[in-house]
């Protein structure tokens, strides 16, 4: 009897017993960043995977259960999770992680947002008032987010402050070196014209100097129609592009359609950690992104 009780109580509290902080990351890139900064001081749960469209996630019972015991929720923000996170947080009955509290962290607040719409209208598709939320495609954005996240970890778990500072300093140094290496490697991509399936890459474009000439979705979030694809095809005859980009979670068909007819390369990007076999951590994510883009030039 005693043993059974022990077993059940260990089941109940296993999550919290081994680690100081329970972190609920909305997207895998923030789970990976939290891992870099907290190491074994946090138990990290990634609510979504790189093969899931982050706009279309359901408030599944498992997410509510995981949010229940979270000490910190780390999300992109900028309304990316508007369709599911509010329900998850409300239903979790966990006041520590409600927006506005120390347990709620939005990465988008710490980076300069691109494509903030001048006109907020659903007629323009799935636009976000604060700007394009796909900030994780520019590695430079991870620096301010990491600094802010480390500060938040210190506030929640001051006992390990020295460790978080040390890990932040390590990450910062290694990440800067990695960015410099990626930039050198990606030099041939500067000024290259691209087509994107969803407007998911403005930060990547800004970083590497890629030039987006068209998007396959007629409006953000709308499925590409044949009519619109034909228009894009006609436009590409005037202004040719070298490749068409889509994220790993997206339907491959529209990119394939346009690539076949305009004779350009299709490049599937991992988009987040776990989006390809090589993108198993943050470094792998950008290694693989650059390699795939370079392969698209050939």
């Amino acid at each position, binding site marked *: 009897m005693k043993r059974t009780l022990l077993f059940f109580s260990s089941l*109940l509290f296993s999550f919290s017993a081994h680690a100081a902080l329970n972190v609920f990351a909305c997207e895998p890139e923030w789970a990976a960043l939290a891992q870099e900064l907290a190491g074994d001081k946090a138990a990290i749960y990634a609510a979504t995977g790189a093969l899931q469209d982050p706009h279309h996630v359901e*408030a*599944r019972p*498992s997410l509510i259960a995981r949010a229940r015991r979270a000490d910190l929720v780390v999300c992109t923000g900028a309304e990316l999770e508007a369709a599911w996170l509010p*329900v998850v947080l409300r239903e979790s009955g966990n006041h*520590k992680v*409600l927006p506005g509290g120390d347990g709620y962290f939005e990465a988008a607040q710490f980076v300069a947002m691109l494509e903030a719409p001048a006109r907020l209208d659903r007629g323009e598709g799935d636009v976000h008032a604060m700007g394009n939320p796909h900030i994780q495609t520019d590695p*430079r954005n991870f*620096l301010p987010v990491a600094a802010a996240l480390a500060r938040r970890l210190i506030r929640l778990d001051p006992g390990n402050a020295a460790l978080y500072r040390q890990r932040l300093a390590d990450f910062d140094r290694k990440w800067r070196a990695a960015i410099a290496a990626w930039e050198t490697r990606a030099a041939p991509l500067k000024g290259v014209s691209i087509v994107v399936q969803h407007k998911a890459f403005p930060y990547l474009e800004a970083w590497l100097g890629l030039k987006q000439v068209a998007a396959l979705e007629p409006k953000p979030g709308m499925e590409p129609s044949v009519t619109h694809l034909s228009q894009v095809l006609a436009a590409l005859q005037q202004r040719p592009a070298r490749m068409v980009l889509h994220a790993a*979670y997206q339907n491959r068909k529209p990119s394939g359609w346009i690539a076949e007819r305009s004779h350009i390369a299709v490049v599937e990007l991992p988009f987040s950690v776990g989006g390809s076999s090589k993108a198993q951590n943050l470094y792998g994510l950008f290694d693989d992104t650059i390699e795939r883009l370079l392969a698209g030039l050939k």
Partner: protein
Amino acid sequence: MFKRTSLSVAIAALLSHSFNASAASDADLQAIREQIQQLKQSYEQRISQLEQRLWAAESSAQQTGTVAARAQPAGVAPASPAGGDNAFNPAIALILGGTYGSVRQDPAIPATGFAMNPNMGHEQGFNLGESELGISANIDAHYRGTATLALDPAGGVSVENAYVQTSALGNGLNLKFGRYFSGLGYLNEQHAHAWDFVDPPLVYATLWENQLAEDGLQVKWLAPTDTFIELGAELGRGRGFPGSDRAKNGAGSGVLFAHAGDDIGIEHSWRLGASLHRTRAADRVSDAVPDLPGTVGGVSNSFSGDSQTAGLDFVWKYAPNGNVRNNYAKLQGEYFRRKETGALTYDIAGANIADTFSVMQSGWYLQGVYQFMPQWRTGLRYDRLDPGAAQVGALNAGNVIADYAFQPARTSLMLDYSASEFSRLRLQLSRDNSRQNLSDNQLFVQYIMSLGAHSAHSY
């Protein structure tokens, strides 16, 4: 802070000035107070904005240095919320809906054996469905308020939901009070615009008058486990069917429910539920009830007694790679069984004979919805009801039909298209065998559009 000091000096100066002016009337004083208040508010806003900017600048400059500095295009400051009277406006969402219905049989005829239950029927021809106006916002740090007003096409507004939810209890506790959809079953909490079919399952239409909305309070507790385990209890007025509105102290109905759910891998997720509902009906009158003597147009009966309902529900969802954008499948089913025991008065306008009455009604549905390509879904639903065999007291044994020996059933097929997540067009065909010897082919076309705030969806 320098700004704060100068602000207080300014306020002090203003105050002393106004006090010295002995001729100032009360109205003037009031106006000055208001001005000071406004001044103070606007200064506080600007100070907090400045603090935010300073903090953001510190974090990016000090911690990130050169590379990040290149990442920040000039002139971008963190978004600051707009001020003014409308700064605290709640989220407003409007649902527009309408249907075209074509049925062959008179929709006023109830399902066989369920003449003493509500008959929700169907609208024929073109008709505006209920438009729904939802307003919600945090009230303060402790409460969140939600109101859903249904705008009836014939005019008038009814309160579908109007409740307050706590947000600060923690420990997995959620308290809700006001008028809300009861947490029993799976479909009961979903608003009509989130249904996968034009109409609710027969078991919801007959046993819950489409949906059970309670005036009362609900408490839910979520267990601190990785598996989702939720327990809930409700005490309510018992105003809707199967209860009857009452004027008395205390609670008129009670609900208990439990939910469990989890994921299996990244592609599957599920939820199971069980619920119990208890209420008391007092003089619940039903008209046009068929009887054994075969009275033309039926008779009016009245029931008073206890009503107990138990239910089981499940939902299972599957999406390749867990990505619901492209394809997904959903299978759900629910079963309810109700036992009513009390006294039935037969033909209250005529014979008026009262005796004991008890019956066990039940019903279930099973439905599958499949999104076979982005934007397009199809679904199939099978419905079944069992009116049960009633135990009728001796005085009414020759009056009240005890056993109908017929189980109503219906099969529905639907196809819907969503140009975006804010619009949906639907076609539904139903083969209705809910009324004995009156099988019906039904066709519905429906639109559901949502405007305004992007309300998050529940599972």
